[in-house]
């Protein structure tokens, strides 16, 4: 009761602060800016927030908060546009949305998918805020109950979702996840600093690959290339079958799923150190497990959109707990947010343990500004979704060059190296072949995303556990098998068993025909060869840095084992068996009028030209050549479209103060922005 005595007046004060016209005005302004930034995949809230920072100094705290929260809150909402319409995962929060959202767009149901996604986001955001209002006062001990073993178990729970997404052949899915994890270990190890599959001569590799690049390469590039080869619109038959009202009705019909996934989002969100990387996969897995008819997942099941979207906005609310209570940012944008709060007013709002005691009204303002920003953002997004969904009826050949432009820019922003583009291309190739031979791409991505947490948490938990065991056996057991860990182990086991039983019904890549042995076998051998090289490489790390080699060795061996069993199976089975799935045998890709390599050559051309001329000049040539030659547009149309593309790119990059990849030309001659 004492809690209510302090909470209720503070909550009242918070609402009094928020419900002023000028505060709401700033909030709407922030939301509109956030939506504009969110259009760019891969940029996220960080770019927008950094832009606002210089104005925060000495600003009235509530106004500054309204502006910033408006901007941060809507990025996970607006990046849904890219995931659903183009199959581009805009951020880690919208990876799982791609799985069913994009197939819906291909079925001509883009507006319905968007509306269902936005309604779920809105609801998730509100559930998150309500939950937090009650929870934040007692959250501290609960957050502290999640130690390293607990975090490791949650990561493993996330990893167990591979079981359900593994596809028709569980071994292929496991091998894909293992390969993803091995790609995730590339670079300098966190613990001992050993290099894995990297060298100091190529500094780019020492940092490892970024999630943005892997997400774009695995999901976006294969889809873009495939659609481009077929030379059609995203929506088959170029028609929109369902409107946005259908999406809202879909949400109504699945509101309890939405409630459950929102709660998953809040709970996982409050655990510092995990962030958004697992939450949408856990929500997706839960959605699949609780759906009776699983045959539509991967082909455009609306529940597959509602689940992850409900969780990812609720997660934003949950993520405020570690940020506000412990001063530990859960993401890059939250880090800037903390920095910016200190700039506000006279600078006496200090994020951290004192926040609840001294600034409870501000804390509640933040929670509810976030919820309110969600409402405003969702309404704007739904209003726009009908119109924006029409993009899916345009002939894809006119969209593709601009998508190549966007993903190249997004990839470059992740590390500001030319190598980012090369990495995007290389990962894109892996994605194309995983898709072609029906190896689960979601499994690969889950493996990649969770590679670092699995390695970090298992090493650290192991070290602390052995420290406890040295003190006494009981202390060690208490540490490793806490009640939370035991519950998580049970959930994980149940979800693996259920998942493996159900996985065969879920075909993330749709129906795939099978063909001859040769191509799938070669792909398998290439993967196995990489794993062998990576294993040898990891084994060369000296033993005193065991922490840096143990995970690559274990994971790599398991993945290699999967590959070897697959190899034996492939040798023993007949041609035409489902194990030899190959999209180039029959179906959309096989019947496409354009070949894979000639289509990919356009993208390669853009990258090569960038190497010589820098991004903008290369882009001018690329857009004009592509529209003229590939799309067959007239000169007038070509020039207008190219100018629009370049103009848009420069406008956004200029406003956000971003650079473009420079080429050899820029190294030799000084050119003015945007050419430099």
């Amino acid at each position, binding site marked *: 009761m004492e809690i209510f005595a302090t909470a209720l007046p503070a909550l009242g004060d918070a609402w009094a602060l928020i419900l002023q016209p000028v505060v709401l005005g700033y909030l709407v302004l922030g939301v509109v800016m956030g939506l504009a930034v969110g259009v760019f995949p891969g940029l996220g809230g960080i770019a927008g927030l950094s832009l606002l920072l210089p104005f925060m100094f000495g600003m009235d705290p509530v106004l500054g908060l309204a502006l910033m929260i408006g901007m941060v809150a809507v990025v996970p909402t607006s990046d849904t546009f890219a995931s659903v319409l183009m199959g581009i995962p805009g951020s880690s929060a919208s990876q799982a949305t791609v799985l069913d959202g994009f197939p819906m767009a291909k079925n001509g149901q883009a507006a319905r998918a968007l509306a269902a996604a936005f309604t779920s986001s809105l609801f998730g955001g509100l559930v998150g805020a309500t939950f937090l209002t009650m929870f934040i006062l007692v959250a501290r001990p609960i957050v502290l109950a999640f130690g390293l073993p607990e975090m490791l178990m949650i990561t493993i729970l996330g990893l167990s979702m591979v079981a359900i997404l593994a596809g028709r052949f569980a071994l292929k899915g496991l091998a894909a996840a293992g390969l993803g994890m091995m790609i995730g270990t590339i670079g300098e190890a966190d613990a001992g600093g050993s290099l894995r599959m990297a060298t100091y001569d190529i500094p780019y590799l020492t940092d490892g690959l970024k999630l943005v690049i892997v997400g774009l390469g695995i999901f976006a590039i294969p889809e873009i290339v495939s659609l481009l080869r077929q030379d059609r619109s995203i929506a088959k038959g170029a028609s929109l079958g369902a409107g946005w009202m259908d999406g809202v009705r879909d949400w109504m019909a699945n509101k309890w799923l939405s409630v459950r996934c929102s709660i998953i989002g809040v709970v996982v969100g409050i655990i*510092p150190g995990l962030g958004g990387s697992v939450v949408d996969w856990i929500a997706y897995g839960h959605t699949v497990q609780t759906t009776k008819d699983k045959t539509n997942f991967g082909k455009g099941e609306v529940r597959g959109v509602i689940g992850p979207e409900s969780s990812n906005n609720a997660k934003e609310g949950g993520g405020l707990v570690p940020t506000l209570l412990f001063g530990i940012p859960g993401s890059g*944008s939250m880090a800037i947010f903390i*920095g910016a709060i*200190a700039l506000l007013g006279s600078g006496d709002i200090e994020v*951290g343990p*004192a926040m609840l005691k001294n600034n409870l009204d501000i804390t509640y303002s933040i929670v509810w500004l976030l919820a309110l920003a969600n409402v405003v953002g969702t309404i704007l997004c739904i209003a726009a979704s009908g119109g924006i969904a029409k993009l899916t009826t345009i002939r894809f050949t006119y969209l593709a060059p601009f998508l190549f432009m966007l993903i190249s820019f997004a990839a470059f922003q992740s590390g500001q190296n030319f190598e980012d583009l090369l990495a995007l291309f290389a990962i894109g190739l892996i994605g194309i072949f995983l898709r072609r031979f029906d190896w689960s791409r979601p499994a690969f991505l889950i493996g990649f995303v969770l590679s670092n947490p699995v390695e970090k948490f298992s090493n650290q938990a192991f070290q*602390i556990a052995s420290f406890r065991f040295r003190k006494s056996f009981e202390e060690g057991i208490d540490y490793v098998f806490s009640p939370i860990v035991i519950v998580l182990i049970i959930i994980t086991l149940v979800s693996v068993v259920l998942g493996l039983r159900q996985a065969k019904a879920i075909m993330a890549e749709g129906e795939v025909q099978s063909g001859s042995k040769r191509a799938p076998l070669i792909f398998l051998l290439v993967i196995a060869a990489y794993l062998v090289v990576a294993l040898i490489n990891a084994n060369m790390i*000296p033993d005193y840095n065991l922490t840096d080699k143990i995970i690559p060795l274990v994971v790599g061996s398991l993945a290699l084992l999967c590959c070897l069993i697959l190899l034996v199976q492939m040798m023993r089975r007949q041609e035409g068996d489902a194990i030899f799935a190959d999209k180039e045998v029959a179906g959309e890709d096989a019947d496409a009028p354009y070949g894979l390599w000639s289509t990919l050559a356009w993208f390669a051309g853009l990258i090569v030209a960038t190497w010589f001329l820098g991004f903008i000049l290369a882009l001018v040539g690329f857009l004009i050549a592509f529209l003229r030659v590939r799309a067959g547009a007239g000169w007038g149309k070509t020039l207008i479209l190219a100018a629009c593309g370049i103009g848009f790119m420069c406008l956004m990059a200029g406003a956000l103060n971003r650079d473009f990849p420079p080429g050899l030309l820029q190294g030799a001659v000084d050119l003015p922005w945007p050419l430099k």
Partner: protein
Amino acid sequence: MTKFNFTRRAVMGFIAAAGIAAPAAAEVDFTGKTIEWVIPFSETGGSAKWANFFGPLLSEALPGKPTVVVKFMPGAGSTKGANWFQEQEHEDGTLLFGTSGSTQFPYLLGDPRVRYEYNDWNPVMASGTGGVAYLNAEDGAKFDGSANALKDTDFIYGSQGATRLDLVPLLAWQMLGMNVEPVFGIKGRGDGRLMFERGEANIDYQTSSGYLGGSTALVNDGKAIPMMTWGALDADGNIVRDPTFPDIATFKEVCQATDGCETSGDAWDAWKAFFVAGFPVQKLAFLPAGTPQDVIDTYTKAFQDVVARADFAEISSKRVGKYPVFTGEGAQGALGTATQVPDSAKAYVTDWLQNAYGVSLK
């Protein structure tokens, strides 16, 4: 031939002189310009906080009130950004670069990734910080101003890596004869504090701002006992009590009180050298190589104006702690302090890293 060469050289010299003199005659004015302050770390670290604090103040103090934006270029433990900055040349004075102890240490330890040279750059501002080590309540009760009663306790500590700033606390605890096992691989000191709060770690250290923001609350609740600060440097280079924490003893005092810990000799010299390079001058702001003197002077003046603000002491103590900010000559001196470490100290630390943690920087 000689005469011709002489004439040519004279002409060239004259042109060169004129070239240098010309911009000096014009007032440096940044009206309508955007200053990019590049930080070789991610948005989450202390350097981001530091640059975001000084950025708006600098903007107001520079002539023409340019917009100052902080750009982040993380990678390879900040060596990527520093290598990039090494390639930059002066253009119009709108590029500023910030380094931290994590940029200094790889440079001092001969990390193979380092392709930058501090002495090529022009320091315009430097600031320091301090650090506080603390223990959990149970073990803290055994602490009596010396580490004598702590030698039989096993400690566990969440660390970012032995070659980072964590080198200073790890070496200090070892000199005190304490058995501290680092758990490597955490991403920031905030994560270390969380590990301490969860009871997984039983010893921790924070830089001043981190201690003020998060750990003092633990101390007030009786969950943590402060052990020592690293201290601060007086004008003569002696280690004295940290002005932000005058009530907490320095490592030097604790070392003197502890059996077997020496405040002279190789170990002490090495510790002090790396402490000095990492804390009293932790963060430096640089203009690129080849920057003309008048631009340097403009920045120096601007930073002096920032420090001279009536409210500077108040706003800075909350954000970055009560530590001197060096400008102009002071910044140059600070650069020397941060980057000149005797070879013997380097050798000692390199050996110790190899023996204690198997870390070799080759």
